[in-house]
């Protein structure tokens, strides 16, 4: 007998329907073959399915079983076909008779089996749910531990299954599993989930202001200064001032994390803005994504959040250069022999750089021990095109001893993370309103046409920019980036127009190193 079960395959963030055809032949030497460009993980489904069925107290037919994963020319990977294959075997061997109320063509089965018949957390559930949503009256059957991923998706019936026998009782109609209800996202706790508070960093008012601008408008920021002045601390304080993801953004981010299998069991939507800080030993594939079935890399995991590169010149040059495309397009295209995938990668780059290998170039008191050549070589590691894509660069200078004093209570001027977050949130709200009609979220994501549309420069401000552009030889890209930064600064002050004051501040952060 032949059984056809609907399932899906995820290629990057794209979802394609897959039909799992299971045939249990009446005659022929007993065996279990899987065809249809199955990878090793799918091949091994044989042993998992067989053992899971037996350990569930059901019978595994001692007959010739052939499984075809159609379409045959599409490579399939992952353990998610365990469940559809198991259901197919049970149906085709006549152990299960389908309840007439279930229309099998509209039910998508997806999930990894454990040897004891339990269903294990499986990645890509959210993508399955979003795919099923496009079809009418569809139903998804997924493992209980990962089912929450799909809880936000409406318009489909979602069945969270714990064990294979439980599913069997459901299909035969003995004990129906009640579908998951739509749960609204839990309110994120308001506490600041950062390692540091801004007020813990002594001095550095300029850098803090730049950090607020970067967080508010999603602009790239480079912090430049000798060791121990607070560059890393400032960056680590950033998660505490970033606004939580909006529901639209959360869905986008969760899709990427769902494919990467980084959603912990039971979790539904990711609401915390991503903050990724890869070590400088990271490979190009690790940073931009890769593998023969390409998985998202750090840039995609930092989508709509922050990618923090500490000690930026220590990264391999090729790895840094691979950031160029995603920094400009907000997406990354990964091409491999098996095909190509596109992942979103619209992130805010925060970089920390020492002025030279020893770190004390330009220090007021300490002497730099590096040779000219060494310094030139060090600076050479960050190429012009990358610098050109950085909107804000600030010097994080060494701190005077008075400011470090523990007993000194004169910290009234210091901005706290709480205050900063409030400012950032307000500015983001202005942007959300502005870009409601188009699919971007922050000023930094504007394309040139949108810059022209949304940035009203006063004549004086424009003049200022023109003078600066001539004097510092700003590239066309930098020119537009400056306007975007000025837009954010104006938004911070809730000004509709970009005034000379805002432009002047924006220009102040375009320091060339």
């Amino acid at each position, binding site marked *: 007998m032949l059984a056809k079960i609907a399932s899906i395959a995820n290629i990057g963030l794209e979802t394609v329907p897959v039909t799992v055809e299971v045939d249990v032949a009446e005659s*022929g*030497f*007993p065996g279990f073959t899987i065809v249809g460009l199955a990878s090793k993980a799918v091949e091994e489904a044989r042993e998992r399915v067989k053992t899971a069925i037996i350990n569930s107290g059901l019978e595994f037919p*001692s007959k010739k079983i052939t499984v075809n994963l159609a379409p045959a020319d599409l490579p399939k990977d992952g353990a998610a076909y365990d469940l559809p294959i198991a259901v197919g075997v049970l149906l085709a061997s006549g152990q299960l008779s389908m309840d007439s109320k279930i229309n099998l063509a509209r039910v998508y089965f997806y999930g990894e089996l454990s040897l004891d018949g339990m269903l294990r957390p499986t990645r890509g559930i959210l993508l399955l749910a979003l795919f099923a949503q496009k079809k009418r009256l569809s139903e998804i059957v997924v493992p209980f531990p990962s089912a929450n991923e799909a809880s936000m998706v409406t318009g489909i019936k979602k069945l969270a299954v714990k064990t294979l026998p439980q599913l069997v009782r459901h299909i035969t109609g003995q004990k129906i599993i009640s579908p998951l209800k739509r749960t609204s996202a839990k309110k994120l706790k308001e506490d600041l989930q950062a390692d540091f508070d801004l007020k813990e960093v002594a001095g550095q008012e300029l850098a803090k202001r730049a950090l607020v601008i970067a967080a508010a408008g999603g602009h790239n920021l480079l912090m430049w200064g000798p060791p121990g002045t607070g560059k890393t601390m400032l960056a680590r304080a950033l998660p505490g001032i970033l606004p939580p993801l909006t529901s639209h953004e959360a869905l986008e981010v969760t899709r990427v994390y769902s494919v990467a299998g980084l959603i912990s069991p039971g979790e539904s939507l990711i609401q915390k803005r991503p903050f990724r800080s890869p070590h400088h030993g990271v490979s190009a594939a690790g940073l931009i994504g890769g593998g023969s079935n390409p998985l998202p890399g750090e840039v995609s995991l930092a989508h709509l959040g922050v990618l923090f590169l500490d000690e930026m010149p220590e990264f391999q040059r090729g790895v840094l250069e691979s950031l160029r495309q995603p920094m400009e397009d907000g997406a990354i295209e990964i091409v491999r022999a098996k095909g190509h995938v596109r992942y979103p990668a619209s992130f805010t780059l925060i970089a920390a750089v020492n002025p030279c290998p020893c770190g004390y170039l330009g220090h007021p008191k300490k002497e730099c021990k590096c040779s000219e050549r060494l310094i030139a070589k060090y600076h050479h590691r960050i190429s012009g095109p990358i610098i050109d894509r950085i909107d804000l660069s600030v010097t994080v200078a060494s701190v005077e001893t008075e400011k470090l004093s523990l007993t000194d209570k004169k910290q009234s001027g210091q901005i706290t993370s709480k205050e900063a977050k409030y400012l950032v949130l307000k500015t983001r709200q202005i942007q959300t309103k502005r870009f409601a009609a188009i699919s971007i979220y922050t000023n930094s994501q504007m394309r040139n046409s949108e810059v022209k549309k949304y940035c009203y420069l006063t004549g004086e401000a424009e003049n200022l920019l023109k003078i600066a552009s001539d004097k510092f030889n700003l590239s066309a890209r930098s020119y537009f980036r400056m306007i975007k930064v000025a837009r954010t600064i104006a938004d911070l002050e809730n000004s509709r127009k970009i005034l000379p004051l805002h432009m002047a501040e924006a220009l102040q952060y375009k320091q060339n190193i």
Partner: protein
Amino acid sequence: MKKFNRIVGSKAEEYASRALIKKGYTIVKRNFSNRFGEIDIIVKDGETLVFVEVKAKTGNRFGTPEEMVSKRKLNQIRKMGEIYMEGKNLPCRIDVIAILLDPASDLLRLSHYQNVY
């Protein structure tokens, strides 16, 4: 244990031969072996030469006898078959007879699978 398996094996081959004769096959050779391996039974089904592998098991505790026939074993029989035919291109096939015995070596089940390769 090894010795015991051999006794069970030859007993099973006896059961298999009888079953094949009953089906109207003619026995050509039993235990055709050289240093590359062994074919348990060679029979003729009409014009077709049939190489038969007999697999017996006592009890189901460690799986069915069918499970114990590996791809490698079938490849070996194929190679042995080619040796037997001495390069001649005769119509032939490979069959498997799976036998389940009880502890007293009495026949519980005998399944004949045709053309398994």
